[in-house]
């Protein structure tokens, strides 16, 4: 998996290290407001939305961070980079399954 395409791996690594730049945009994307933001953004919390919003509560690193580690930009940046590492590792592990499935 890691033998070839060194430059692509390096490029990916560079993007992972630089990922905290994405934290500088603090605004919430359109249509992705949390139930805590909806009163301000919309004026109310739609009742159907409220019932479904917290459907998934098992995300270990919600919002690409480590719970409790968000006191400063540096702490958030560490959580963000670590999130990139975890996400990329999971993706590569899943993709490795294809190595056995595909032809030479």
């Amino acid at each position, binding site marked *: 998996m890691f033998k070839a395409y060194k430059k692509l791996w390096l490029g990916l690594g560079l*993007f992972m290290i630089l990922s905290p730049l994405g934290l500088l945009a603090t605004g919430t994307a359109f249509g992705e407001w949390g139930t805590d933001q*909806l009163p301000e953004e919309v004026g109310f919390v739609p009742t159907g939305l409220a019932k*479904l919003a917290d459907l998934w509560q098992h995300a270990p690193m919600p919002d690409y961070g480590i719970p409790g580690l968000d006191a400063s930009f540096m702490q958030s940046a560490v959580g963000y980079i670590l999130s990139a590492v975890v996400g990329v590792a999971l993706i590569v592990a899943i993709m490795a399954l294809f190595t056995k499935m595909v032809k030479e």
Partner: protein
Amino acid sequence: MHIPDGYLSPQTAVPFLALMVPVWGVAVKKVKENLKKREVPVLAIGAAFSFTIMMFNLPIPGGSSAHAVGAVLLAILLGPWSACIGVSIALIIQALVFNDGGIMAIGANCFNMGVIMPFVGYYCYRLVKGNADVTSGRALVAAAIAGYVGLNFAALFTGLEFGSQYHLFQAADGTPLYFPFPIKVAVAAMMSEHMLLAGPVEALVTALGLGFVSKNYPELISKKYMKIGNGKWGVESHV
């Protein structure tokens, strides 16, 4: 563009999930048939790149944010079905591990960013590139346009899915049950953000990415266009 849980009614979100199951089935079959063992790391890197690029939030004036996706680059390099697998895996991990995008909304999100975007982008790229060489300037321009168009089609579909909820699902007192704005507002907001900001970034990422790969790993691209697979020439064998 990651629709959270609650913004789509179950009547909308679940059919998207049901639709994606056979699409993923076909995609896995296509990838097993057409992807070479030596290309698997490229798919892994491409999916990982898509995951990472989505973390680069771009500030939108007015307090919003948006991001590029990378799906069209993956589609140009390995075909749209490979891109579908790569982006879908990135999106599923984002939902499960990072709570970015809903669980019930995984189908809709994978449809928008993992089907619409790579397929529209891929055919847009081929249309603009024509018979030009993949290392030519025209191919890079085609990649830029394809990235821009692909992302904006994904934004359009997201806006339509959002906005349709307002009209279809209302409480007895007339208040919206799920996404709270009319379709015009949803489409206008999604499109303006992606046409003005995230789209140009996606264009840049797609063209620079293709240029980087064709410069450093020309064999990865040229072989695909030269080889004869199943009697078919060129990229068709990837589709």
